[in-house]
Structures are given as structure tokens and as C-alpha cells.
């Protein structure tokens, strides 16, 4: 039988994550709505419970659209990080996501940080277009890519059994943390 044509729609959202020491940074790309949020959430939680980072950096710089489902996604990951005894930061939210973050008063719940010199001014515009500063989360090799297509989404296991490698502090490293000094 000839193979069935792949009619899976191109994913509208995906994320890439990167570990450096006890910091896990996750960069979401695409549109965050109710449809895409479910798979992003499952994928992130699976990673969080596997790696148990002290700090989660949620990079929203490549998010082109976000509605209140994104607020739920952030609030939910905040709770997970609290459960894990860690903290989280929303990193460099794109102009498309800032209005809703402000409306929700998200800065009262989580830290929202920007690269130096790129903090938005009162009118909502970025003050400069400089290079990302040293405080930017690592953008090195992706350790996992999860798309928001339900069939390919990982189910969130809250109890990962087989960590691959353990570092000194008991954290699981995907990349060698010693090479990630700037993170």
C-alpha cells in the first residue's frame, strides 16, 4: 500500500529548551492560544519534572500572538516551579504579548526581564535594538523540540524514571553546564 499522505498541519507553536546548571530556559515560538497551549504545557511540564531546575526562564521573544490561554500557561508553570521549590522569569516578551501581560498584572506574580537597553518604554515600544546582553538565556543546542500538534505532543509525565545524567547538584544535564558560563 502506498504511504498515506501526511496531512498534519504545520505546527503553529513549538518550543526549544536549554539547560545550563540549575537554569532551564524554554523559548516558545509561534502563537499561544487554547489550541496550542495544551501541547506546550505538557511538553514543558515533562521537562520540568525531569530536570527539576531551580530557575525556569520562559522566553516569549518569538511569540507572535498570545491570548489569555498564555496567561493560564504562565500561571500554571509558576505553580509547578513553586511546587519544585524554584522560581521563574518571563524573558523578553515580544511586543505582541506585552499588552495582555500588563493587563493581567503578570509582573506582580513573576519577574519579567528584558535584555539590557531593550526594556519597553511607557508607550510600549522597545527603547533600543541592541544586541542581546549577557543575561540572555542560552540559545545553544535544543534538548527537545515539542510541537503543538496533539499527535506528536509528549504526555506530561510527572514522575520521570530514567534521568540520563546527573550533575553534582542532582540535576539532570542535557548539555555540559561548565560550557554555559554566560547563562
Amino acid at each position, binding site marked *: 500500500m502506498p504511504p498515506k499522505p501526511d496531512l498534519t498541519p504545520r505546527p503553529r507553536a513549538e518550543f526549544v529548551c536549554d539547560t545550563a546548571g540549575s537554569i532551564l530556559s524554554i523559548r516558545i515560538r509561534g502563537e499561544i492560544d*487554547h*489550541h496550542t497551549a495544551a501541547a506546550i504545557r505538557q511538553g514543558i511540564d515533562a521537562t520540568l519534572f525531569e530536570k527539576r531546575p531551580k530557575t525556569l526562564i520562559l522566553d516569549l521573544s518569538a511569540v507572535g*500572538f498570545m491570548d489569555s*490561554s498564555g*496567561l493560564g500557561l504562565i500561571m500554571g508553570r509558576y505553580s509547578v516551579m513553586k511546587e519544585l521549590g524554584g522560581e521563574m522569569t518571563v524573558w523578553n516578551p515580544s511586543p505582541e504579548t506585552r*499588552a*495582555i501581560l500588563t493587563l493581567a498584572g503578570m509582573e506582580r506574580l513573576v519577574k519579567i526581564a528584558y535584555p539590557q537597553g531593550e526594556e519597553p518604554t511607557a508607550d510600549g515600544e522597545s527603547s533600543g535594538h541592541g544586541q542581546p546582553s549577557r543575561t540572555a538565556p542560552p540559545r545553544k543546542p535544543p534538548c527537545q523540540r515539542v510541537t503543538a500538534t496533539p499527535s506528536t505532543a509528549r504526555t506530561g509525565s510527572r514522575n520521570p524514571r530514567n534521568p540520563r545524567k546527573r550533575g553534582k547538584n542532582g540535576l539532570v544535564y542535557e548539555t555540559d553546564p561548565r560550557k554555559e558560563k554566560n547563562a
Partner: protein
Amino acid sequence: MSRTRRTTQFSGEILNKIQIKLPALSVNESMARAAVAAFVSQLDPGVTEIADIKCAVSEAVTNAIVHGYRDTPETGSIAITVSILSGRAVKIEIKDKGCGIPDVGQARQPLYTTDAAGERSGMGFTVMESFTDALKVTSKVGKGTTVTMWKKLSERGRI
């Protein structure tokens, strides 16, 4: 603040109108907001205005899918009507025939949600209200919900 006063300022005549009917599937959320944005773009709206409209539409359509038809085994249907009114105003109506809302006033409160387990934030109506100029919600338990939003676009001198 009276809601009726806010909606009566949008009494302009209808210049153009589209109707979209779509199955209540979450995959259609992005299509719905994109279609409304494409239709409204004939008014040459600003970037922020179009972003606000997309977000507000996404909220209303998502609510119909997540809440309106939560107990309906078959896929429900959502009707979207977008009208361009004289005076650079847009009227967007999003209608479902789902379960309805018993207490609309309570549902509109920020952070109120009946689906915390689904990681809803309870901010949908707050977004619709903040990103448009007027919001009307009519609902009847067992019959369905109609959300109507109006937005006046800034002057850009095209229409």
C-alpha cells in the same frame, strides 16, 4: 458606568459585513481571528488595533469551544458576524448555541473561571472588555451565548 451608553455610541450604518460559520474545534481558533482581522484590514487599522481585535476574537471563540459546548458530544457550531460601521467602527458578534452562562455578571469578573483545572485564567472577558470599546454579553442557560464587541478605529484617513 452604563453599558448601554457605551454601545449606543456605535449606531453608524452598516457599510460592509461578513458572516462566518465554523465548527467549534480548537484548531479553528487561529483561523477565526485571522479571518476577522483580514476583513477589518480594509479599514487600514493600526498594528495595535488589529492585535487587540485578534485577541478579543480569540477569547470569545475559545470560550464557545471550551465552555459553551463543554457538555455537547457532537461538535457545535459558532457563528461570527463582522460589520463595518460608518465612522471607522467595527462590530463583531460571536454566537454559540451551547450551555449558556447562568450569571453573566459573575462570569465577567476578572479571574472568574469554572475551569481552573483546564488552566483557564479567568481573564477572557477582561481581555475582551479592555481590548475593545464596548462589550455586550447575552446568554440563556441551555440556549447559548452571544458576545458582541465594538471597536472604534483611529483616524487614518482611508475610509
